[in-house]
């Protein structure tokens, strides 16, 4: 049961506390939570419309020094399938993606000591110069920390030089759960909660926009989730630089952590977290449903639990496969799924500006 006091707060648009958030996450019945989240969703985004972005998600290297226990992607230097792409190779990849209609390149990679800071600056500059049709959405906070550490430049200097090179948005990855108790266990070398927040704060202060993510479903407890949400809510109060919150569940396969946590979190957990986030993050404009990472059907359901954005048309972990997979079918299927869920679809850019609206002709197909 949701206490009438919390209900009233949400109804009146008042902020709920961390402990109230814990109670909602733990005790509220699923559909009560959904109902409240829906109320807040339409308060923030009154249109019965769901946005998506045509994007691709290549990786410039899989070599990484952080050894996070949840990661099945990274390799050590010298591993047979370790790779590191040059800027020119990446540009060719981006051009191929742009030719297929991609508007956003979400670029991330491992923390690879062999890549100098110039590599990252050049990647931004060349993308802007040579692939003008795409928006570079590059480098998560742990990568920024890596650049700072390896170059000897401060976080501010790294970010300022990237800004000057033309970068305007950052992906919100690498946060995992912003609880040092948890981070010590799953990503001890990726920086602390304060480090992640410091990068984001500095970025937002300079003028960058970013998303905020959370990876749950491993060692975290409810209070850790709420601590995470409160940290990003507080930071958002300072600069308003977050565009959207994007939670996803830990996928146990092929990672050391998966041996301890063999089961993926349940679908219900995902819906609860989406709904709670929508209610709790009263200063976030958007909540993203990750249909590529969580599944198409749960992605559709999340649209009734507070999410108003369907994420990217393509999340690709492998740089070489990326271009091959992208075709018009993905975009159409994405629109079809949004329509079938009962919403108009709209293609947006990285900054959530609408590019094109696809009105649902018949919300519930009927022969």
């Amino acid at each position, binding site marked *: *049961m*949701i206490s009438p006091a919390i*209900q009233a707060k949400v109804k009146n648009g008042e902020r709920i506390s961390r402990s109230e958030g814990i109670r909602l996450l733990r005790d509220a*019945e*699923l*559909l*009560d939570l*959904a*109902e409240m989240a*829906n*109320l807040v969703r339409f308060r923030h985004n009154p249109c*019965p419309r769901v946005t998506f972005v045509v994007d691709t998600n290549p990786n410039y290297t899989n070599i990484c020094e952080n050894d996070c226990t949840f990661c099945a992607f990274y390799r050590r230097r010298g591993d047979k399938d370790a790779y590191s792409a040059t800027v020119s190779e990446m540009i060719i990849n981006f051009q191929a993606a742009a030719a297929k209609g991609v508007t956003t390149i979400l670029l991330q990679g491992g923390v690879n000591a062999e890549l100098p800071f110039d590599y990252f600056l050049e990647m931004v500059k060349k993308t802007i110069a040579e692939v003008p049709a795409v928006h570079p959405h590059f480098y998560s906070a742990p990568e920024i920390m890596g650049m700072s550490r390896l170059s000897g430049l401060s976080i501010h200097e790294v970010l300022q030089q990237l800004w000057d090179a033309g970068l305007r948005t950052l992906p919100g990855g690498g946060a995992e759960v912003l609880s040092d108790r948890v981070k010590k266990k799953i990503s001890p070398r990726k920086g602390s909660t304060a480090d992640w927040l410091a990068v984001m704060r500095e970025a937002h202060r300079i003028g960058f926009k970013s998303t905020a993510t959370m990876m749950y479903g491993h060692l975290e407890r409810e209070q850790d989730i709420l601590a995470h949400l409160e940290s990003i809510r507080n930071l958002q109060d300072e600069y308003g630089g977050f565009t959207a919150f994007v939670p996803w569940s830990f996928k146990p396969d092929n990672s050391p952590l998966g041996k301890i946590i063999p*089961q993926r979190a*349940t*679908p*219900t*957990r995902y*819906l609860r977290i989406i709904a709670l986030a929508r209610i709790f993050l009263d200063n976030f404009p958007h909540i993203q449903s990750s249909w590529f990472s*969580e*599944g*198409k*059907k*749960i992605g*559709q*359901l999340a649209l*009734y639990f507070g999410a108003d954005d369907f994420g990217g048309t393509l999340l690709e972990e492998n740089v070489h496969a990326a271009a091959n997979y992208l075709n018009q079918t993905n975009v159409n*299927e994405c629109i079809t*799924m949004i329509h*079938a*869920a*009962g919403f108009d679809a709209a293609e947006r850019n990285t900054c959530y500006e609408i590019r094109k609206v696809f009105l649902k002709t018949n*919300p*519930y197909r*009927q*022969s």
Partner: protein
Amino acid sequence: MTDINFRDDGLVPLWNKVQGGERLTLQDGLTLFGTNDIISLGKMAATVQQRMSGDAVYFALNQKIEPSNICVLSCRFCNFAMKADQPAAYDMSLDEILGLIKPEIREVHITGSLNPQRPWNYYLEMIRQIKEHYPQTDVKAFTAVELDFFRKKFKLPLQEILAQLKAAGLDTLPGGGAEVFSERIRQELYPRKIGAKTWLDIHKAAHRFGIRSNATLLYGHIETYEERLEHLIQLRAAQDETGGFLAFIPLAFQPGTTGIKAPHEFTSAIDDLKTIAISRLMLDNFPHIKAYWVMLTEDVAAAALNFGADDLEGTVGGEKIAHDAGATSPMSLAKERLINIIRDAGKIAVERDGLYRPLEVHGEGIVGKIPYLNSVPFYNYFEKGRFKLLPAAPRYLGMLSARGRIIAAPFSLMDYLAQEDKLELMDYCIASYEQVRSIMFFSRFPWSELQGKNIGIIDDTATSVHLLRVLLEKKYGVQANLTRMAGGNQDYRNFDAVLLIGDEALRANKTGLPGFTAVFDLAVEWFDWQKMPFVFAVWAVQKSLPLGMKKELSTALRKALAREEKEHPSLLSTLHGRRIGLTQAETAAYLGGITFRLGEAEKAAIKVFRKLALPVPDKRDNSLKSKGKK
């Protein structure tokens, strides 16, 4: 759950109808399909779900067996069927079939093709041998389509088919082969398969024979919403006639390479959940709605548990028909995964047998709920708080309490007496000073002539059986043979007398049982003899429960009862009474005759009964012969 804040006001009149126990029409169903207010629709269905099944979500450790894919039919939506000369055709021997079953399996689910190659005896042997090698397994086998095929191929009347299968050990029928009860669609997609009338006739015949069954709907292909709803309405009418359906299972169409839809065009999650919720609302007389994860995906099935579904099927193991048509779900789910999904949905995970009896439960703070009219005053206005409600016949509540699985319940008096060391009495009971009408003894003979006669008893509660025995032996001085009857068995021909309890007794009391001319209310028999009330059940709580929880439960019961008594009879009680054929006045009179508070007179009566019922330790097991069911 909180009240519903409708985003779509068009649903409000329908919600009023549902709350008032009024049936929804086809037009109402179309309004529900047309809404975008999925969450409110879900809450409507979840409220009905809570009323029907409390917080229980059932699953079975089950094994799907598809003995062959060689089929004389060629249904357009099927990617499974083969002709005998195709390389992928298969036809399992009995040994292969037995080899699929693991010892922990509690239900096998056998459906297959219409295979022209096998003799009748193959099917009977299949069931016999499964029962022989795995006696703990219930057998759910053969859709109406297969049964129709058997009767034609083996030139046997349906009655004979059913009788032989039942004798071989068949427990229930699966619900497949119904597809959509629309002749238009049948002509287009499966012209050679049986139509609606034959399907329904076969199920109704099975129900009358004491074989319960499920029902399905294959949706998400070329059918219209009207056709889905007409299908539901026909099922509802059939259930009114026989009451034999256990679960309704909407099956999401898997496009595969059938050519009916593109291979990636699965139903949307929203359509799936709407169909689940609308089924729960339309089928007001179906006990269970199943979220069949094989076709819905694990994700939608998990969400469905809050949209009206109270059954997650089971571990399944080795399903092929849906997977041949492109289903993306895994072939089986581990028990631990099912339990996690159910518990995360806020429900009690209940391992069931073929008839939905609880074998094991997983969850905390579970309070038992006797699903009879005489208990509804405790539950209609029960504020759950930290508790979860598990509906089960008294006997099962006793068994689960003995294993420490539930924290409190209205226990059958005998179960309480057997567990006095770990249970603490609460201030509530179900007792009667005179007529109770729900523990009824229907006999062909007067009491004095029952010596050596054969008496059938419903095995739902131990107390009424002990009361009957005390009356027979101590009041009338006769010894009779008591034989357990399977639940839901309505075939009383072989008995000289039968003991019925709960709603079953109330119903039979109203209609009478042909041939059983002497009818006795055991509460009256007791009262005339002892001049004391008879206590059928007592509320008791685990002694080890923290005091705070005990108080919370006690308060919840006190408030619920007070509100119920103020409204006497409450709307929900009246609706429950109506389901078993009682008018509002009859429900009021029946509930008015029950004492719900455990006072001194009731406590004294318990003592007297204990002395009479328990002088010789557990003599009942010597004379209780189990018939048919375990």
